[in-house]
């Protein structure tokens, strides 16, 4: 091929890159959710050692910056004898970092379930397991969805970092377009539009999920709430 490539020539490459990006996003989000629930529940424990471990892990992963965690896993950990595949390093870094933020979301949502609900569950002689699965969680989940959606968008927005640990993600493909002499202005704008569209599509899905779980609780919202846009904010400030 002669001359600089056009945007259309690069679409197959971008799609391949997007596949890798979405792979890490998907598994990173799953790990984030699992860690958020585990750490969030641990942080509510009455036992000091359990709560202490959770707090240390949460504050550690919130306090050290995500790019540094990612580079640590990919470049520093092999020096200590563990070599991770780049994809695994990405999933683990995103999952740990955002899982720590998610733990606070889970903890806050469970604490936000009104006290009388706990007392009523005890009065009805529900076991502590039944109380959590039948009374508390169904009410806490709708409270978590907007914040988790926000965390997802933050995670998704961090995925261009993957190109720095030699994953051929969508950012890598965009960079290769620039190296091949393509119009970088157009390419970066296209990349931003792709990110924007996916973030909004997921927001729509999260709204749908929120409406669904709320209707199970008897809280019905109009169809307009589906099209409410979420305002992604950094995790520090997320409620």
């Amino acid at each position, binding site marked *: 091929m002669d001359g600089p490539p056009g945007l259309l020539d690069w679409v197959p490459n971008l799609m391949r890159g997007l596949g890798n990006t979405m792979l890490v996003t998907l598994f990173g989000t799953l790990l984030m959710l699992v860690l958020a629930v585990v750490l969030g529940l641990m942080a509510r424990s009455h036992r000091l050692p359990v709560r202490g471990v959770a707090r240390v892990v949460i504050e550690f992963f919130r306090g050290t*910056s995500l*790019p540094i965690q990612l580079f640590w896993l990919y470049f520093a950990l092999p*020096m200590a004898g563990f070599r991770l595949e780049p994809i695994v390093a990405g999933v683990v870094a995103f999952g740990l970092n955002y899982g720590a933020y998610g733990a606070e979301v889970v903890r806050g949502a469970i604490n936000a379930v009104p006290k009388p609900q706990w007392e009523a569950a005890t009065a009805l002689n529900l076991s502590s397991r039944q109380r959590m699965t039948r009374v508390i969680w169904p009410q806490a989940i709708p409270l978590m969805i907007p914040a988790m959606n926000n965390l997802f968008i933050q995670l998704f927005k961090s995925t261009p970092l993957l190109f720095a640990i030699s994953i051929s993600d969508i950012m890598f493909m965009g960079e290769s377009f620039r190296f091949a002499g393509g119009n970088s202005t157009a390419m970066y704008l296209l990349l931003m539009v792709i990110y924007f569209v996916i*973030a909004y599509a997921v927001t729509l899905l999260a709204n749908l999920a929120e409406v669904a779980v709320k209707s199970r609780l008897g809280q019905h919202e109009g169809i307009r709430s589906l099209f409410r846009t979420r*305002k992604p904010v*950094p995790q520090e*400030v997320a409620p």
Partner: protein
Amino acid sequence: MNWSWEFAFEILPELLEHFVQYTLVATVLGTIVGAALGLIFAVIRQLRIPLLAQLTTAFIEFVRSTPLLIQLFFLFYALPGMGVTLSPMFVGVLGLGVHYACYMADVYRSGIDAVPKGQWEASVALHLPPRITWQRVVLPQAIRNVLPALGNYAIAMFKETPFLAFITVPELLRTAQSIGGETFRYLEPFTMAGLIFLAASYPTALLLRRMEYRLAAY
């Protein structure tokens, strides 16, 4: 495990120097740009200037939903093609500032909304011109209320400064990387870099929580 304390302390001064010179400076300047621009965005939207207000809203929505890294690359690699060449540090401060201005605009808005309606009415009653109403009555009260929230954004921005490494700003992450490249030891530089971040951000977050608590007491 082949961790060497000797090596870790040997590289600490260099890391700290770059941390102060680039990471902290970028955070402070980025916060100033973000806070100023965010205020302008918020006032434009509050005044409902036709077209400009809608454009600002669209810009804010777009910037918030797209990755900071691509925005930085756009400023750094795409703008020179249009005849604007900026130094890496300038691009970094500008990118961080604009990105966070879009978050901060909403913070200001909630602060402005929280100023009691009576304050606006009193300003009208006192026949204050709009400029004085904003300058002397509304904004001083609004900004005071949002200071802790702005501080939280400053911490968030601080933790995103390693993104500047990719546009060749020699901040903490890039310094750690280049030390690793020279010595083939990555464990110590990256660990120390992470610990420096933790040591700086955790106490600041605690301090902000206390400030929030004290301001809320009024």
